[in-house]
Every structure is written in structure tokens, then in C-alpha cells.
């Protein structure tokens, strides 16, 4: 716990709140989490932290983070915020090479094969990749992206903004498939307690 507090302070300059400390500790133990926290509470830092801390702590954890959002504007701004966080982190904990933080959206398809260490993408990019029909990648290498999904730590942000009958339903199927293979973190500001419990039951 002390280590997580110290690392979190290095990353953000402030101490973690209880929900952040708990979520990070459990994700590092490969437990999947549904985090209900309001906007402005530090969900993004909580999501990035275990990925960075695992390397510093030499804990077995996926080497890639795929951060999925429902809106491309959100992907852009989160990527910028994460670049600053990671730059600060690497000043204190430098690695053999700097982490590549990439963007894969319809507007900015700069990482169609999910080659970055931290990939910010929209939900359509992630789901098409998982279903072996990735955008911007030929059919011959379509399975590369789904392999990347299975080898990654997955973060689904703003879960409540997904279309319940379409992308949200597919995400639930994805989570059922990756459970026990890829650790994942679901984050939402406004999901009701009842719906959160139903999602938990469906995935477990």
C-alpha cells in the first residue's frame, strides 16, 4: 500500500484516494474492476497507474494498455493528458525506451495495428479489431489486432455513453471472452447500482 501511495504521488503529485488505491492494488493482482466515480475524480490516473506501476514493481502484467472511449474527442484529450503523466513518470522511473502513446480513431488512424504501448482508441476501432475485421488493416493480417486485445490490459471509459443495444452489448460479449486472460477496468460516472450489479453478474 505504501508503495502504491508513493508511486501514485510520483505520477500525479498528490496522494491517492481510497477508491484509487483499492482499484490499483486489485488490478495489479489481475482482478477485474468496475469503477463508479464522478467526472473529475481522477479515473484516468487510476486507469494508467497499474500499467506503469507493474513495470516499476516488476509485477507480471500485460505490456500493452488499450484505452477505449466512446468519443474521438475524448481519445484526443486523454492521450494528451497521458503523455504528460507518462513524461513525468519516466523522469523518475526511466525505462530502456520511452513508452509509445498512440491514437487510433477514424479521424486519426495513426496506429491501425495497435503497436503502441498505450493505445487510445474509439469503441468502433476496438470492437472491429476484436471481431477480426479491423478498420484500416487488410484481411490477411486482421487477426493481429485481436491478438493484441487478448494480450493487453483493457480500459473501457465512460461506459454509460455506449449504445445499450449495439456497442455496449458487444462489449459485454468481449468481456466474457477475455475474462481471466486480459485484466480489464470498466469506468463510469453515472451507471446505476442496479445496472452495475447486472453487468457484474453477466460477466462473472
Amino acid at each position, binding site marked *: 500500500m505504501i508503495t502504491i501511495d508513493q508511486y501514485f504521488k510520483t505520477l500525479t503529485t498528490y496522494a491517492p*484516494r*481510497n477508491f484509487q488505491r483499492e482499484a490499483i492494488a486489485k488490478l495489479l493482482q489481475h482482478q477485474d*474492476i468496475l*469503477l463508479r466515480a464522478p467526472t*473529475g*475524480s481522477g479515473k484516468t490516473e487510476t486507469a494508467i497507474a497499474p500499467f506503469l506501476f507493474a513495470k516499476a514493481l516488476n509485477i507480471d502484467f500485460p505490456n500493452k494498455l488499450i484505452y477505449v472511449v466512446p468519443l474521438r474527442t475524448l481519445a484526443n484529450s486523454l492521450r494528451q493528458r497521458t503523455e504528460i503523466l507518462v513524461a513525468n513518470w519516466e523522469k523518475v522511473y526511466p525505462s530502456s525506451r520511452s513508452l509509445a502513446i498512440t491514437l487510433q480513431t477514424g479521424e486519426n488512424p495513426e496506429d491501425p495495428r495497435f503497436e503502441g504501448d498505450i493505445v487510445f482508441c474509439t469503441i468502433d476501432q476496438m470492437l472491429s479489431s476484436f471481431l477480426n475485421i479491423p478498420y484500416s488493416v487488410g484481411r490477411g493480417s486482421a487477426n493481429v489486432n485481436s491478438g493484441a486485445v487478448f494480450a493487453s490490459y483493457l480500459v473501457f471509459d465512460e461506459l454509460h455513453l455506449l449504445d445499450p443495444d449495439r456497442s455496449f452489448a458487444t462489449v459485454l460479449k468481449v468481456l466474457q471472452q477475455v475474462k481471466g486472460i486480459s485484466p480489464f477496468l470498466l469506468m463510469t460516472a453515472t451507471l446505476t447500482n442496479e445496472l452495475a450489479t447486472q453487468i*457484474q453478474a453477466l460477466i462473472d
Partner: protein
Amino acid sequence: MEIIQVEDADLQAIEGDRCRTFQAVSHPLNASVILDDIRAYQRQRVIVEWH
């Protein structure tokens, strides 16, 4: 999968942090004031709540 949520004490602190920006604004808060603030501080995210 485990559900984690923010404790009430943290929730109050988070709400307090959110209000800090506009608490010092004495003039009426309209779209122009908000836009000027976004530009001046290069804010990435802005939350507007009506009470």
C-alpha cells in the same frame, strides 16, 4: 469482477475541488465567460452544473 465506488467523504472533497474554479467569479456566468476561461487556461475538460 469487483465493483468499486467513491466513498462519501471522497465524494465531498471531489465536489469541493470542482467548485473551486468558479467560486471566485462574482459576475454572472454565461457562455462567453466560460469560453474565455477555457481559452485563458487551455482547459481540457469543463463541467457546467446548474443548481
